[in-house]
Each structure stands twice: as structure tokens, then as C-alpha cells.
């Protein structure tokens, strides 16, 4: 925030600088990261404003004209509207579809990460605090969960409960909570050995108070940093599941489902139906990765 926040590599980390400013400075300090952060902010804004800025409501069948199906980018349709990114097989404007798809993708990515974070942090905190048999039981389950490729677990789960935005979120929470639990436990175990916790115990503070008021806020940092990258993972997983046909329903297409819809037209040269949502997805994932990776490095967190 200060004028000295230039693009130098060394970031002065004064202990009294507010955390928010430190984070901002770390993101701003490199051009790539800055670009990625701006891009990411743009995506979130576009997703939030989609209903107001999209040229067309892609979910409103009445506003679609089937006559305008599979038009190339930049062509004008029957209604006089110009489709800058072309149309799909239903005559849907791809630009509008992408803006709405961005909404679904971000919704799933953010809420599943939040859910997985809540469960994982709680489990890791309890394991670290209580130790013994509880710790062993929780960590055994965590090891078990992490032993399988997430795509396979989510695929089989969704195969049995069916598709739907809420169900995809549940499936992603199920495959992602374990990594947060492991991280949180490790982080909380380190914190627990510090003197202020010992002091709190000697004061006779109740265990729950120590866990929630001292251990949680002081050990959650690294988990939050890692979760930034995990949002990209959640979005990728959702896109993959939707591409395979077990993800979000056709009535609420995410970027992954839009790509899947365009796949069959790829070979006949109508590339835009799949490629433009794909570019949006790739840019979204890359920007999350770059920002997340920068945060992870500057806070020196090992994933």
C-alpha cells in the first residue's frame, strides 16, 4: 500500500503490518501475479454481473432462436443480434452461455472448497487437540480417502446419487476435505507446543476455548493459503465430472458442460462451441494457480 511497494523481490515483512496489506503487497510485487489477480477479479466480477451484462439469457428458451444454431463467431442472427463468439446447437449465444457458465463453475468451486475447508479444519483441529484414539481414527480415514484418485471417488459417488449442482458440491467436498484435515492437524500440532497455549492450559481455560480462540486462528493460515490453489482443483474436478456427464445438469451448464456440448462439433470444424468456454476455463484455472502459488511461496507453506 505504501509508495515503496515496488516490484522488488524482497518484501519487507514488518511484524506490525496488517495481514491484509501484506497479502496485497505480495500479490502486487510481480507482474505475472498482478496480471493473474486482475484477471481473477475480472472473472469474479463477470460471474456476479452475468445476468446484467450477458446479451441473452441462455436459460430462457423463449429468447433463443433455433434458426440461429451453430453460427460462426461474429455473425448476425435472425433477430439482428450479433453473436461475437458464435452460437451452439440450440442457437444459444456462446458469450452469454460462458458468462452464466462461469457463474456455475465459480459457485461450485467456491462452495465446495468452503465446505471441504470447514470439515477438514474441524477434523484436523479435533485430531490435533484430542490426540490418542480419536486422532488415530480420524487420520486413518484421511489416509484412506487420500489413497484413491479423487476423480474416481467423485465419479462413482455421482454415478450413484445422480447429477446436480448440489451433488457435485457434495462429491468434491468428500474428496477434498481430507487434505485440509491433514494440513490443519500438522499445523495445529506445531502451534500446540508453543508457550501461549501452555499458558492458556495452566490458566485452566476450557479445552473448547483453547481450541477455538487460540489454536484455530493461529494455525489456520497455511490451510487457507493452500485452499486458494485447491479452488482451481475443485473447478477442474467439476469441469471434468460435467464433461463426463455426471456433473451439473444440462439446465445449469458450467464451463465444463459447455465444452462437452461442443465436443461433438469439434471434428466438423465448428470449434468455437467448445474452444471459447475452454479458454475461459483455462484462464480461470491458471489465474487461480498463479495467485495461489505466489501466496504459498511468500508465506512459505508446503502443500
Amino acid at each position, binding site marked *: 500500500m505504501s509508495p515503496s511497494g515496488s516490484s522488488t523481490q524482497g518484501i519487507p515483512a514488518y511484524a506490525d503490518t496488517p495481514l491484509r496489506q501484506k497479502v496485497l503487497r505480495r500479490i502486487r510485487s510481480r507482474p505475472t501475479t498482478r496480471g493473474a489477480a486482475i484477471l481473477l477479479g475480472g472473472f469474479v466480477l463477470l460471474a456476479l454481473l452475468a445476468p446484467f451484462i450477458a446479451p441473452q439469457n441462455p436459460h430462457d428458451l423463449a429468447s433463443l432462436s433455433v434458426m440461429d444454431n451453430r453460427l460462426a463467431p461474429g455473425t448476425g442472427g435472425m433477430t439482428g443480434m450479433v453473436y461475437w463468439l458464435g452460437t451452439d446447437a440450440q442457437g444459444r449465444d456462446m458469450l452469454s452461455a460462458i458468462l452464466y457458465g462461469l457463474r456455475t463453475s465459480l459457485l461450485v468451486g467456491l462452495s465446495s472448497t468452503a465446505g471441504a475447508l470447514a470439515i477438514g479444519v474441524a477434523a484436523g483441529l479435533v485430531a490435533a487437540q484430542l490426540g490418542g484414539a480419536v486422532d488415530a481414527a480420524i487420520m486413518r480415514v484421511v489416509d*484412506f480417502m487420500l*489413497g*484413491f*484418485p479423487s*476423480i*474416481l471417488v467423485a*465419479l*462413482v*459417488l455421482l*454415478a*450413484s*446419487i*445422480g447429477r446436480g449442482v448440489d451433488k457435485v458440491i457434495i462429491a468434491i467436498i468428500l474428496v477434498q476435505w481430507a487434505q485440509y484435515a491433514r494440513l490443519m492437524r500438522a499445523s495445529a500440532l506445531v502451534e500446540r507446543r508453543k508457550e501461549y497455549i501452555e499458558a492458556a492450559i495452566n490458566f485452566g481455560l476450557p479445552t473448547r476455548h483453547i481450541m477455538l480462540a487460540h489454536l484455530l486462528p493461529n494455525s489456520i493460515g497455511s490451510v487457507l493459503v493452500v485452499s486458494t490453489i485447491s479452488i*482451481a482443483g475443485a473447478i*477442474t474436478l467439476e*469441469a*471434468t465430472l460435467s*464433461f*463426463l*456427464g*455426471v456433473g451439473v445438469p444440462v439446465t445449469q451448464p458450467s464451463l*465444463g458442460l459447455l*465444452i462437452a456440448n461442443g*465436443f461433438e462439433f*469439434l*471434428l466438423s*470444424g465448428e*470449434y468455437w462451441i*467448445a*474452444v471459447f468456454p*475452454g479458454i475461459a*476455463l*483455462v484462464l480461470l*484455472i*491458471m489465474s487461480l*494457480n498463479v495467485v495461489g*502459488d505466489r501466496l504459498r511461496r511468500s508465506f512459505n507453506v508446503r502443500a
Partner: protein
Amino acid sequence: MTAYVLQRLIQSVLVLLAVSVVVFFAVYGIGDPIELLVPPQVSAAERAALVRRLGLDLPVWQQYFTFMGNALKGDLGRSFVHGVPAIELILARLPATFELVLLAMSLAAAVGVPLGLLAGLDPESRPARLIMGGTVLGYSLPSFWKGMMLILLFGVALGWLPTAGRGEMVSVLGFQTSLLTVDGLRHLLLPALNLAIPNMALMIRLVAAGTTEAMTQDYVKYARAKGVRRKRIVGRHVLRNILIPVVTVVGIEFGSLVAFSTITETVFAWPGMGKLLIDSIYHLDRPVVVAYVLLATLLFVLVNFLVDILYAALDPRVKLTGEMA
């Protein structure tokens, strides 16, 4: 060592049992396959007969015990859709997936190790940065998207390679393989490359990190002081020492390659196990889904087991801990 092996074996069996319970109840708990299998005009009596024949009228736990009893005899149920044993159906698709995974793994190692060495020997150079930047793309982009871009580039735009199916096959020892015909290899190249890319990236990173670290070690300094040529230092001393993590990754990733081949096989219409899983999910063909997951789990458990033993064979220090456990 025997105690260690035994302990690992018991663990593995427990994992398999746990997976069988979880998967069986997850897959059998919801969705009624009868609705899909029986045409609407069939009479109620015929319908009930089919339900009885498939054992769907029994309580779920009883279905599980029947299933496990049969599973121990090597019978994982009959496919609702195809009417043949599920395990037969999967094993028939195994060679297609296996040759895909095999080629992908070889590609990943053949490209990953040299590029990793190159990047690790001079980490600050421009090519090294380029390679490391590429690895981020390699494993963060969704696999299905990379596959589609490969199709678009090599199949549609350039027209060099076919993009679907296995192509011409020859029979070797009773298995159909695409590895031995030119047409088959052409069909195999794109899906194998797509499957290989994330592993290539992983291998480059591992080898690069290992190389950078190894170059600072005393044995490298000693060899250099002795006047050994750089080529020989890298090829003979460094490469050997960084191969252990590479072998581990090859082993562990073998399992996840089989899982991820589901996506690649769908994109490239490759008739392997993964495509079968997806098709079975669409058709609510539960026995095939359950059998697939159990076989995949068996594979993971087995591969991890073998990697541990191989690890012990490659690194003499590991054996000690093995005996103590």
C-alpha cells in the same frame, strides 16, 4: 521383512474390505436399474421374475453378503446390460487400457527425465524456466481439455493422426494389441500423449529438484575434483541417485493413470476399461461399476505393495526400517 510384508498384507485386505462395503452401499443404495432394463409394456409378473432372478428383492445387506461370497469365488456379478459376468467384460477391456498406460508411462519417462535433467542442471537458465513454466500448464490444465486440443491440432487442423478408436490390431498370445501395427500406433499416440502429459510434468519437476540437490553433494564435488568429465558425473552418479523417487512415482502413478484413463478414453473413444466404466454408469449397470472399482482398488493396493518392495531393493537404507517394523 516377513513381519513387515505380513503387516502390509493385512492392511491391504482391510482396505479392500472397507472399499467393498462403501462402494457396494453407495452404488446399490440409490437408483433402480429395473426401470431402465424393463420395457414399460412388460407385465408385472415378468417384471417380478426379473427382480427375483437378479436378486434385487433381497435386503441390501443380504445382497452384499451374496456379492462378497461370490466375489471370493472370483464372481463379481453379471452385467445387467450385457448379461455376461462383469469381470469378464472388464478383463476383455484390460489390454486396451494397459497398452495405453504402458505407452503413456514410457513417454512420460522418456521425455520427463532428460528435460528434468536439463532444467535441474542450470535452474536459472532460460530453457529451464521455460520447461518449469510448461510443467505448471502440464498438470494444472484439465485432462479432457488437453485431449480436445490435441485432437483439434493433430486431428482436425493438421490431419496427421486419427483421433478415435484403436485402429488395426494384431493378436499376441491371445490379446488384441495396437502396439505392433503402424496404424495401431498412430491411433495410440494422441491418447497416450494426453495421458502422459501430467506425469511428464511431475517427472520433470522431480528430476529437476533431485538434480539441483544432487549437484551440490559431496560425491559430485569429489568426482569433479578427481577430474571426471561432467557428462559422466551426470549420467553415472547423479542420474542413479535421482532414479529412486522416479521409480516410486512411476509405480504410484500407474494406479492413478488407470483411473485417469477414464477421461482420456472418453475423449478419444478408446475402448478400454475407463470407457466401459463411464458407459456402465450411464446405463446404471451396477455390477460392472462395483467390479471395476474393486479391481481398480486391488490394482492400487498391489502396485503400492510392489513399489515398497522395489524401493527396498533399490535403496539399501530402506531395508533396515523394513526389518524393524
